[in-house]
């Protein structure tokens, strides 16, 4: 690869957050840490498909597929915890390959609408399925007791690993093809690149991450129901990406942390946390079109003098 991957920052950052989770003893804080980690992974998954220029509202469906797969594997099949967890990601990726093969020939609003429709259709399937618990969903999706005290650290570690993997992919030559597709698909095609194949690969990788987020949601929440996986999930993820900034993989992380923490604070006040998402998105779009990370980068550029923006 040869490019500056900023690995020391990554290792330091991951060590820092993992270390911090070890200090968490309060169950409420632990649950917020889990929710933040999972939200961050969903947002990063959504952003990964944004690299090819598409808004993937089916992200919510793949989170749901991961959650229901892990839930079924643990409660019905009684498979080992880690196997069930990874299975959620794999099944989501496999379904997404079929879905992507059919739908990735469309673009823009059409692709978005198909993703939206798919998410709602899959949700109806859960609610009609007796095996999956219908409208009330599945209960009793527990990790092994030995995992219990380490859950926030475990969830954070899995999420960090996935996000780091997606970062490496984005910075690889494969990632450059993704950006090229967003910028100018025709040119990429003329130099021998199979665009549909690359799009499906991108989609499947993102869906694996979304499925893993679903698995983690199932085992940390212990209860899942169809309502958890409506298109709103994707809309929130989009808010994390837009508020945090989409230029950089750190953006969705910042957005997820900020909005989830704000949201839980609002819940504590007895307010509707959705108002915060709405307000944050409006403020972000009006005041910081490149998100928080974009604003910080511009501030840094100004401090260090102009002309260094493209140096990386």
């Amino acid at each position, binding site marked *: 690869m*040869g490019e500056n991957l900023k690995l020391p920052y990554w290792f330091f950052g991951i060590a820092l957050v993992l270390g911090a989770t070890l200090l968490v003893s309060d169950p409420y804080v632990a649950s917020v840490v889990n929710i933040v980690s999972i939200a961050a992974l969903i947002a990063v998954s959504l952003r990964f498909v944004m690299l090819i220029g598409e808004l993937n509202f089916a992200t919510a469906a793949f989170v749901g597929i991961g959650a229901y797969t892990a839930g079924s594997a643990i409660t019905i099949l009684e498979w080992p915890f880690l196997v069930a967890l990874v299975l959620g990601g794999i099944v989501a990726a496999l379904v997404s390959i079929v879905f992507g093969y059919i739908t990735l020939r469309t673009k823009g609003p059409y692709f978005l609408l198909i993703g939206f429709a798919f998410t709602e259709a899959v949700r109806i399937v859960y609610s009609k399925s007796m095996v999956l618990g219908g409208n009330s969903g599945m209960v009793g999706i527990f990790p092994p007791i030995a995992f219990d005290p380490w859950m926030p650290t475990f969830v954070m570690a899995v999420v960090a690993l996935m996000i780091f993997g997606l970062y490496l992919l984005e910075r690889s030559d494969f990632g*450059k093809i993704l950006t*090229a597709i967003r*910028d100018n698909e025709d*040119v990429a*095609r*003329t130099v021998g*690149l199979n665009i549909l194949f690359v799009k499906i690969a991108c989609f499947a990788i993102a869906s694996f991450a979304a499925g893993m987020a679903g698995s983690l949601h199932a085992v940390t929440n212990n209860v899942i129901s169809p309502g958890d996986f409506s298109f709103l999930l994707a809309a929130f993820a989009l808010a994390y990406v837009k508020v945090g900034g989409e230029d950089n993989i750190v953006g969705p992380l910042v957005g997820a942390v900020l909005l989830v923490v704000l949201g839980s604070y609002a819940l504590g006040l007895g307010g509707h946390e959705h108002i915060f998402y709405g307000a944050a998105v409006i403020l972000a779009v009006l005041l910081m079109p490149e998100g928080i990370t974009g604003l910080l980068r511009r501030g840094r550029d100004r401090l260090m003098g102009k002309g260094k923006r493209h140096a990386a």
Partner: protein
Amino acid sequence: MQHEGKEALLRTEGLTRRFGGLVAVSDVDFDILPGEILGLIGPNGAGKSTTFNLISGFYKPSAGKLTVFGENCTGKSPLTISRMGLVRTFQHGSLMPSMSVRDNILLGTIHGVRGAGKRRERAAETAEMLGLTPYLSEEAGTLPHGIQRLVSIGIAFAARPRLLCLDEPLTGLNQTEVANTLAVLEKIRDEHGCSVLLVEHNMKAVMKVCDRIVVLHHGQVLASGTPAEIRADKSVIEAYLGHRHAN
């Protein structure tokens, strides 16, 4: 059809494309030979772009045959044809504006070159040849038009095609930039043995750089030959070059 013992890289036979009732390209025959720069010229609406899209697989012919590197490629997809070694550019915005020049050129190497290090070597070499080295870290979309045009050629040539097809690469360039681009095309031909199909409006440039020229008019081949032959061709002068050139 053989030309002095050289097998054609590309051959069209009776190539025709209709759009509803409109016949955009009708019964077009021509060859591109190894190591030549072939100019495809003609007034607006003569069928140049359609022909260009037909040979790169972006349009399917309504009739006729397309042979590329000795293989029948009639109706083959753009991907298949580009992977065989026929790489094209587009008239407008033939690059990735948000990516650096380095990454733009790198994109051209990904399919053909194994290994990240070798790809970077190839990209650097290509940039050097096109004089783009000073711009490698710049965002392609922010560069002057003339440089962007060179980047487009760079992306395509980084794939090291056997036949490079350029769609009006000189449009909007000043004299220095035109001379510079023509020198690049000659280098591509002479140093790499790559043939070039040049669809172009700039007559002076076409006459200067092309080994042979095919003139399209109303979707048909009006004439073909060396620049000297084309310059002397009465029908071409009437149809296309106009009185100023005729005198």
